[in-house]
Structure formats: structure tokens, C-alpha cells
């Protein structure tokens, strides 16, 4: 069997096993599996409105996954992505508040707010990068800490300096006037600009990783940091570049949540998209071409799961179980395939 076919086949087997696992879980808890899967499908692609919701959900997911492909290419585990989304949202909210009463046209202000988001995300990511390069702090642990700090910052702003007139509440800051929201596409709850930005983000990452010297060096760094250091690649610089680009994309995702979805800053503004992006990046095996379909599929699971509690009285966290199971089973099947291949090749060469 050709290698690529075997590769697709083993991934497909992983997907099937994940579905079977989730089905068994449903059975064990007394829920009808087929009906649940059916509801997931109806709930995500059953109507034009639902499909648009899926696309809107995929926008931030695509942006963070695109960014994570950069840090993964450089061999970095950017778990601080959640904080980078959050700080991006904080920066764009801050800029909007600053320019709310200015004479600038709203379109320009929104564009500036998105750029501010990119800046905020990049700065927060740079912090993890600097801590790694100059402080020797593993990016997983600094990232986790910085995520909490970013959340704290959000809550402090919502209850402190940016609180609603009267009393601050967990519902977030005062919503912005409608002219400061990204224009919606007709009557649908999605902005064409946001969709275009996410596609641009993924295309940008595709081009950087495929066709530039920077991309090549990032990948060299990821494959073997010691060797690339000896070959003269400035490991510190490229580590920082990967963090900055990833943070900027995550920051844009955060800015779009503010300008396009919530129209204000809320405590859980990142909505777990960062962690979900890590799952998507793992499931596509860090290959750019598969990001769009897989991100759309994951977005469909989120949207589809919303009506599970209403129709079938099933917790919507079932979608999360399936999202995780997919990655886990693909990883296990892939591991078994690799070991089996090594085994048979070892036999053929007489070892």
C-alpha cells in the first residue's frame, strides 16, 4: 500500500474509533448515540443560519491555529495562546475606548482596534519568548502563568477602571455603540471582514512556512535547535519571531471577538479558542493544508452541541469529549502504525 494512502487510512481509523468511543459513552449514560450525532449535524449545518454560525466560530479558531503552526514549526509549545487572545482583546477594547469620542471615521477606528489587538497579542507572546530566551523558563509554564495573569487583568479592568456606569458585573464592559462593530454580512451574524482576515492569516502562515527563508529557519530550529545554533541560525531571534507572529494572530482573534462578536470586553473573552487551536494543530499533524476543513469541523461540533441540552438533555461538553477523543485516537493509531512499520522494515533489512 502506498505510504500516503496508509497515512490517510490510519487517520481515518482514528476518527472512526473516536466516534465509536463517544457512541459507547452515550450508550453508557443512557443517551441515544445516533440521535445525538444526528442532532450535532442538524445543529451545525441544518440551516443557512447555522452554517453561518459555524463559519463565525471558525474565524478565531483559524487565526489561532494559523499562529500555532508558527510556534509548533519552531518546536515551541505555545500554551500561553489563551492569554495572547485575551490581551489582544484588551488592547483593542482599550483603543476603542480611547477613540470613541474622536472625529475619526468608525471604519478607521475599527481597523486601528484590530491592529492594536495584534500588537497586544504579540507583546504578550513576546513576554513568554523573552522569559524563555533570557530567563530559561519553559514556555509551557510561563504561558500557563501568563494566561492567568491575562484573565486577572481582564477581570480587574471590568470591575475597576472600565466598569459599567453604576456597578461592574461579570457581564463585561459597557457595549460599544453599533457603528463601532464590524459590519455584518446581510442579516447574518458574521462579518465578511473577519472571514477575510482569517483566510489571510492562514494564507500568510502557509506562505511563510512554505516559501521563505524565515520559514525554513523556523523549521530547522524546530527540528534540531542545537544543530541550527551551530549552523549559525540565531535561535533567540527566531524563537522570538515565532512567538511574535503567533501572538499577533491570536491578538487579532481577540480583537475580532470584541469588534465582531461581543462588542465589549467580557471575562472569558478567549472562550477556550486557544486550547482548541492546539487540538486542531495536533490533529492536522501541523500541516497547513488541513487546517481549514478541520477547524470548520471543530467549529461545527461547537455550534451543533449548543442544542444538545435542549433537545436531548445531554451536556454540551460532549462536543469537547469528541474533540479530544479524535486527537487521542488518531495519535494512538498513528503511533501503532509507526511502530509496526519500524518493526516490519527492521525485519526486511535483516535486523
Amino acid at each position, binding site marked *: 500500500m502506498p505510504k500516503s494512502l496508509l497515512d490517510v487510512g490510519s487517520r481515518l481509523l482514528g476518527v472512526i474509533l473516536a466516534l465509536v468511543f463517544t457512541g459507547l*459513552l452515550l450508550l453508557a*449514560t443512557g443517551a441515544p448515540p445516533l440521535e445525538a450525532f444526528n442532532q450535532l449535524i442538524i445543529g451545525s449545518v441544518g440551516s443557512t443560519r447555522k452554517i453561518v454560525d459555524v463559519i463565525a466560530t471558525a474565524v478565531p479558531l483559524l487565526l489561532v491555529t494559523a499562529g500555532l503552526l508558527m510556534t509548533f514549526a519552531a518546536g515551541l*509549545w505555545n*500554551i500561553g495562546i489563551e492569554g495572547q487572545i485575551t490581551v489582544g482583546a484588551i488592547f483593542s477594547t482599550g483603543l476603542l475606548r480611547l477613540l470613541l469620542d474622536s472625529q475619526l471615521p468608525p471604519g478607521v477606528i475599527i481597523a486601528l482596534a484590530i491592529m492594536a489587538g495584534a500588537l497586544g497579542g504579540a507583546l504578550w507572546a513576546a513576554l513568554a519568548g523573552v*522569559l524563555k*530566551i*533570557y*530567563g*530559561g*523558563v*519553559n514556555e*509551557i*509554564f*510561563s504561558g*500557563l*502563568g*501568563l*494566561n*492567568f*495573569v491575562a*484573565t*486577572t487583568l481582564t*477581570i*480587574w479592568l471590568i*470591575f*475597576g477602571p472600565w466598569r459599567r456606569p453604576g456597578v*461592574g458585573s461579570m457581564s463585561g464592559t459597557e457595549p460599544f455603540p453599533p457603528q463601532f462593530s464590524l459590519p455584518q454580512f446581510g442579516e447574518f451574524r458574521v462579518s465578511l471582514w473577519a472571514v477575510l482576515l482569517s483566510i489571510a492569516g492562514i494564507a500568510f502562515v502557509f506562505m511563510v512556512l512554505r516559501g521563505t527563508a524565515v520559514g525554513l529557519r523556523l523549521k530547522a530550529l524546530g527540528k534540531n535547535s542545537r544543530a541550527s545554533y551551530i549552523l549559525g541560525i540565531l535561535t533567540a531571534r527566531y524563537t522570538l519571531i515565532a512567538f511574535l507572529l503567533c501572538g499577533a494572530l491570536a491578538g487579532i482573534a481577540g480583537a475580532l471577538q470584541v469588534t465582531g462578536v461581543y462588542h465589549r470586553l467580557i*471575562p472569558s473573552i478567549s472562550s477556550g479558542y486557544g*486550547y482548541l487551536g*492546539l*487540538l486542531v494543530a*495536533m490533529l492536522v499533524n501541523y500541516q497547513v493544508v488541513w487546517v481549514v476543513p478541520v477547524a470548520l469541523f471543530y467549529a461545527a461540533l461547537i455550534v451543533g452541541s449548543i442544542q444538545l441540552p435542549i433537545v436531548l438533555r*445531554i*451536556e454540551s*461538553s*460532549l*462536543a*469537547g*469529549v469528541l*474533540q*479530544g*477523543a479524535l*486527537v*487521542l485516537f488518531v*495519535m*494512538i493509531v*498513528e*503511533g*501503532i502504525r*509507526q*511502530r509496526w512499520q519500524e518493526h516490519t522494515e527492521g525485519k526486511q533489512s535483516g535486523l
Partner: protein
Amino acid sequence: MDFNQLIIGLAGVIASASPIVFAVTGETISERAGVINLSLNGVILLTAMAGFATAATTGSVLLGFLMGALIGAAVAFIIAFTSITLRQSQVAVGFVLTLMTRDLAYYLGSPFTGMSGPRVPSQPIPLLNEIPVLGPLFFSHNLVVYASLVLIIIAWLWMFRSYPGLVLRGVGEQPASAYMRGINVNRQRYLYTILGGAIVGLAGPAYSLSVKAGWQGTISGLDGIGWIALAITVFGGWHPLRAAFGAYLFAFLQWLSLVLQPVLTGIPSQALQVAPFPLMILALLLVNAGNTEWVRRRLAALPEKQRKRIGGILRALNVAPPAALGTNFRKE
């Protein structure tokens, strides 16, 4: 606040740190053997839910803790199998499991949300609890808290004062040398990953059956604890005593933020409760800075006397992770 209130507060710190002590001790054990178990955050939620559900249905808190240990061990086994046998990334599989077990906890836990259930009863130790200061601090808790205190000492004795402990550190530090000495590296790693996972699995029931009794679904306030425990493991320099100190420090800071809340009225309570994190990063920075190129170069440029002094401080703070942490061992 008078002295008695302070003692009661500190005794509360020791009790509320007990789940974190289980988590960091378990994690320290498996990381010492060379395996990162990144699934803590989800496992604590899942074992808290399952431990509570088991105890509520059977009426036995002991079974609840057993269930927790069993689940912790099972998740750790998946990590060991996927990373050691299948040679996939430890971090990747641990991360997936942390998200999956969290969602499993919320999914499976929904029938038990808000249910009333048993709780580990308080059992002051007679005579010992009469000792001034030490009595209320250490000897007027429940069995879970005593177990956490005993666990710290056993883990330390095992790791640093026994031959199996030497082997444990060896497979995490120099797996190739350990192998040369006839030690089955991967078997040791399986063993300690699963043992560490089982201990981590006690952290969940320690919440749901002792510290924060009950299961409240997504508002249980336990989401995030596992990530903190992972950071404390690093802060603790992979040493059971230092890790336990980190757990108590964290609980102390949380208590302090509650006590100070009426004084610092401008700051919302949610912000105060996460205040320890910036401190944690700072601590990580301090314990790691000595390992970097940059600091070494700077130090070399300093005059002899200053270099010795600053170098000495950094060395005292410095901890290095087990050299083979996160890598897979294969005999060539």
C-alpha cells in the same frame, strides 16, 4: 486579627493545600522518572466528580478516594503507553487528556451536580491536638489532611533515602546509564507514571469529599487548579519537600488575599484570588535564570568577588529539571 485567629487561619491553609500536595507530589514522582503528566487539570476535575459520585452512591468516602486513584492511574497509563511504547509526544497526549477528562467530568457529572453527599469527618488526634500552636495547626484535621502530610515525608524518604528512589531518579536523569546497570528503564517509567498518576487522582476527592465538599459542575471552581499544580512542581524543583512548600505558599497567598480583601477595597476579589500567579512566574524566573547562557556570560564579566556572591545566590535558588524529562528512551 489576634493570635488565635491567625493559628486557625494557618490551620485552614494546611487543610486547603492538601489536594494540591497530592497533585504536586504525584507529578513530582512521575517527572522525576522522566515523564511529564500534563493531564492534571482535567484529572483533578474528573476525579473530584467521580470520587464524589462514588461516595454519594455507595456512602463510602474510602471508595470515593479509591475511584480517584484508579482514574488517575488509568489516565497516567494512557500517557505512559502513548509516549513510552508508541513514542508520541508526552506533552501532546497529556494536553489532549487534560481537555478530554475535563469535558468528561462535566458530561458524566451532570446527574450529580448540587447533590448532597458524604464528607470526610474531622478527627482531631487526642493529646497531640492539645499542644499549643502545633496542636491546632497539624493535629486537628481529618484523615485526608494527615495523609497529605505523611505523603510528603514518605515521598522524600523514598526518593532520597532509599535504593529504589535512586533508581527512580536515575531513569529520569541518565536513562542510558541506568540501562547499562541492568535497570529496565521503561518498566520503571511505567511504574512511576502510574503510581504518580494514582496519587494525583487523590487530589480530586480531596476537594470534593473534604476541602470543597460536593460537585457543582462548571462552577466548582476547580478548573485551573491542575495548571497551578504543574507550575508548583517546577517551582518545587522536583523535590517533594520544596514542592510541598510551594503548595502551602500558594494556599497561604490565597488565604492572605481573602483576609486582605476588606482592606484593599479597590480590587475585586476575583483578581486577588489569582494574584499568586505573577509571583509564581517570578519564582520560576528566579529558579531558572542561572541556567541560561546570557546570565552565565554576564556573570563571567563581573569582578571575582561579586561574581562569587551573585553566582552563589543563583546556585542556591537554581533547580535543574531531570535531564531526560519529556524524552523517550529507546535502546539502540
